């Protein structure tokens, strides 16, 4: 670099002339605008911003100017370089954005191809409905009790006021464990669980027992030797048929929806007195006069049979160690398999038991 020279005429240094700086700036801006790829911008940067670019070279000349000229010329070149850098940055961002979008566009896939490579499991609806019903009871403050499936004859029958010669015993179609003297059965109902609960704790008792039970029915479209039911038992001071009705109405609503009421018909069970059959207002036609006649669910009755119930026979309380003078209670039971078959319009009960995956799969992990 040459020493300061007071005789120096800045106008005479060509690259630093105003019009020359302007031309260099415009050329740079033009090149920037014309570049349409990151690649091209790289070259533009080398040509117009890099160390060997005209503006950079011009900038280097400024130091050779006399001090009084440096400021003005420095400003001129500086502005030009600033404009070019700004334009380059803007254009780079623009081009990068376009290129990014293009890359994403190129990465597009066919999202409609099957993606079920992983196996999907499912829970049997009889499992799910037992859980669902249990939850309803738990929400009422009840507890869920359980017991063995091979049960003592005494608990399945005698303790429930079904003595050895009781006619109702033969109606139960019981599987007996061999030899008969073993006095054990496959439980015909979940009622022995109720007895077991009373035998092991004192009232107040509010329990429900969902579970698997057995009857000697050959499997066909409407029968199975194994089925599921849920029974409930409440023992407390001052309980009556009215509390039974209230509980069943609540349960009916919780399972079948608002407005599903129940009705009692007198009946007979050895373990309850008085006993009743409970019917459910048809959850399909709601006994609506306009629909009931053609309703396939209730066959024109307006009501569907739901289960059996009643006030616990004090003889059962005595056998199970509960003081019948102080406590009373009620019990009820209903089948769950039919809840599934009727609500899902399943004509053949065997579908529940065959194990065909196409039966369970649609239920997923919840009803």
């Amino acid at each position, binding site marked *: 670099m040459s020493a300061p020279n007071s005789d120096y005429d800045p106008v005479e240094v060509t690259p630093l002339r105003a019009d020359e700086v302007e031309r260099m700036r415009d050329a740079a801006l033009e090149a920037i605008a014309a570049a349409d790829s990151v690649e091209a911008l790289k070259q533009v940067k080398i040509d117009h911003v890099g160390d060997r670019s005209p503006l950079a070279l011009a900038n280097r000349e400024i130091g050779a100017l006399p001090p009084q000229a440096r400021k003005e010329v420095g400003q001129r070149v500086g502005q030009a370089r600033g404009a070019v850098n700004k334009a380059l940055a803007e254009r780079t961002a623009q081009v990068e954005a376009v290129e990014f979008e293009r890359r994403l566009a190129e990465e597009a896939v066919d999202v409609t191809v099957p993606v079920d490579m992983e196996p999907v499991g499912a829970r*049997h609806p009889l499992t799910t409905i037992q*859980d669902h019903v249990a939850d309803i009871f*738990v929400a009422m403050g009840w507890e869920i009790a359980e017991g063995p499936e091979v049960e003592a004859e005494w608990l399945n029958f005698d303790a429930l006021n079904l003595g050895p010669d009781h006619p109702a015993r033969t109606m139960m179609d019981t599987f007996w464990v061999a030899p008969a003297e073993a006095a054990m059965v496959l439980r015909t109902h979940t009622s022995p669980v109720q007895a077991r609960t009373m035998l092991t704790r004192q009232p107040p008792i509010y329990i429900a027992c969902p579970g698997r039970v057995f009857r000697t029915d050959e499997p066909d479209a409407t029968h199975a030797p194994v089925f599921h039911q849920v029974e409930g038992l*409440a023992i407390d001071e001052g309980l*009556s048929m009215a509390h039974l009705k209230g509980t069943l109405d609540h349960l009916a609503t919780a399972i079948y929806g608002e407005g599903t009421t129940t009705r009692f018909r007198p009946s007979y069970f050895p373990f309850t007195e008085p006993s009743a059959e409970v019917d459910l207002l048809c959850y399909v036609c709601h006994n609506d006069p306009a629909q009931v006649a053609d309703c396939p669910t209730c066959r024109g009755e307006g009501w569907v049979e739901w289960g059996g119930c009643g006030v616990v026979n004090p*003889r059962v309380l005595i056998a199970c160690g509960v003081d019948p003078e102080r406590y009373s209670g009620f019990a009820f039971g209903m089948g769950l398999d039919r809840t599934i078959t009727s609500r899902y319009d399943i004509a053949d009960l065997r579908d529940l038991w065959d*194990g065909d995956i196409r039966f369970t799969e649609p239920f997923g992990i919840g009803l």
Partner: protein
Amino acid sequence: MKVPVPWLRELVGLPDSVTTEQLAARLTAFDLKLEEIVGGQLSGPLVVGRVLSAVPEPQKNGKTINWCRVDVGPEHNDPATDDLPAGRGIVCGAHNFGPGDLVVVSLPGTFLPALGFEISARKTYGHVSDGMICSTAELGLPGGDQSGILVLEAGSAEPGDDAIALLGLNDETLDLEVNPDRGYAWSLRGVGRDTALAFDLPFRDPADIEVTDTDGEGYPVVVEDREACPVFVTRRVTGIDPTRPTPEWMARRLVQAGMRSISLTVDISNYVMLELGQPNHAYDAAKLSGPIGVRRARAGERLTTLDDVDRVLDPADLLICDDEGPVGLAGIMGAAHVEIDDTTTDVVIEAAYFDRSTVARAARRHKLSSEAARRFERGVDPSLQARAAQRVAELLVEHGGGRIEPGITVVGEVAPRPAVTLAADLPRRIAGVPSIDLEASVAALRGNACEVEVQGDQLVVTPPSWRFDLNDPYDVVEEVLRVVGYDQVPSVLPQAPGGRGLTRAQELRRRVGYALAGAGLVEVKTFPFAGEEDFDKLGLPADDERRRQVLLENPLSAQEPGLTTTLLTGLLRAAGLNVGRGHEDVALTEMGRVFRTRDDSPHAPIYGVDRRPTDDELAVLDAALPDQPLMAAWTMLGQREKRGWSGPGRDATWADAIAVAKRLADVLHVELTVEAVALAPFHPGRCAAFLLDGTVVGHAGELHPKVLEAYGLPARGVAGEVNLDALIGAAPELGPRPDFSSFPVAKEDLAFVVDASVHAGDLQAALASSGPLVESVRLFDIYAGDQVPAGKKSLAFNVRLRAADHTLTDAEITEARAAAVEAAARFDATLR
């Protein structure tokens, strides 16, 4: 119980305004549930006709038909012509009638249920037959010559009379379901009383019968067992005309009630049973020798009952005998050789009251039920016998021309039923119906023929002799509620005290269920029955304890005589069904109980019911029950990940089967140890046993090729089963506390050469416990081949080291690494 409606109406005096449907609805509300209304489907015009002429016309087909002119009354007759009197032309193929006979004619438009179609005029044999002359069978009537034309008694009707009403052809019958506690309702008397109560009508008891001619002996009786036979009544009727027919109305009622009309004497006996509920028997007096005895059977004694079955008797069977031997199984069925026949003129009528259990047990023992047994089992009115015998005798006099022989034998007597005392407000409290006051209770009970006495705030209720179901205060409550109406019970939701929610085990079972579904398994439910064939298919050795089933007395099939000992019997069967239905890739699971016999095959005790058994007694009872643990089983066949556009997929392997067990252990926070075992039904080299604190709780692996073949399953299928009760029982109250360090990790890869027999899992466990700095160890490569000596293999592990409170120094890392190598040395592992 089949109740002919006209009979019931007549008995109760039910107003015509009450329809059969209304009647049935009220009875249902009174615990006599309607099963079905039978009859009432026939529709007219069905009229009485008089045959004016019947011209036989032989036909080409060899038959001869009658071309008849029949007077069917002015309303229905075609007008007279030059040749013919007023009437209708009808072709008839039968010949048991002639001109002048009264017959029943179904005119076009008549619907006969027995035929199932509507009669119309039709061309046949060259005539237009304008109706049909009906046979007994076509009218659905009992008795007589069923295929012959029904010829009415001369003078009993006029042509044109409505035959439907005349013959009761449209009578309806209520088929009622009678609950076992209401034995009294197996009679018109019982149903009639409830009907009268339901409609608030006065009831005239058909059993209000005066017993006459009581002086002297009816027929000698010796009752040896007064407990089994508390009452036995005999009396005699002689001079019956055996040719007399059963009155048409009686035969009709019997048939409507589901019985057959047999002969006048038998029909009367059955009619009285239906009417009063008292089974009774008429013996041919000429065939009885010596007094009638009532005793238990002797060992080896035999009896041929009326149904022609030769029965070996049990010493507990109660018999009716004469000098020659048994003449009947008491309360169930008589013997053929003393039955009345079409020459019988003198009969001995028996009406007894037998102990309910004695009859029930004998009927069960001989698998023999009868109308009589059904009633005795459920309880016959023990005060009724003499009156019922009187009723039979009177009907034999009235319709059979017999005469009642003076004298009646009555052995025994039953005490009145004990009174039931209850708090007067108990019916209101237990029913929860506010409107049940003292007055309502008393009225309802008196309507049920109970005697009621109010003593302060108590009711003393004496039930009538036939109400075996009224023993306890609550029984009385039901009778009150039945009359007040079950529909009066209000709906009140009781407030349970706060419950504890699901038990821990219940929660964990759900967790397992979701984990199984999450593992891609589809839950199925199968019947828990199995047999030798199943265990053979599983390849279980002869002495395998899983062959020791809990057997059933009465299994549904001989192939499955007992309960299963492993869920795999049902699960593999279900898998086969799926494969058979064309599903190549199947992953199934089941949760359920299996059953294991106890070595000493104990008997469960039967305790009394008058008190709670003691805790010790309950423990004995529980100890007798078979072990019945809850298990989870799974099977995977075909592809675990499906082939497709993304790749070739991946077949399920033994590792997937083991992974399910590991997953269950993980969700329950229990540690399972895995050991290699050889056990059916698994491939002997590809089966893992799972141990929990040293106890085997399950197995998984690849199924034995022969097992897969036996079930028709694809090669390399896998399965597993674990005892959930054991796993859940071991689950800690709380899962592990999260414990991790935020200091940097040091990763070391260690490859060892070991003997091929060394289990990678064992080596991995040794590395994992080689020092406090070891955070995790993971096997990432197994190699056997040229690079390692024969009989050896290389196992490569990622070991991650980390300290809880500082960054590891190089020295610490070196030391930890050395400790790991040393731990491996126990397996003769050399660092590669």
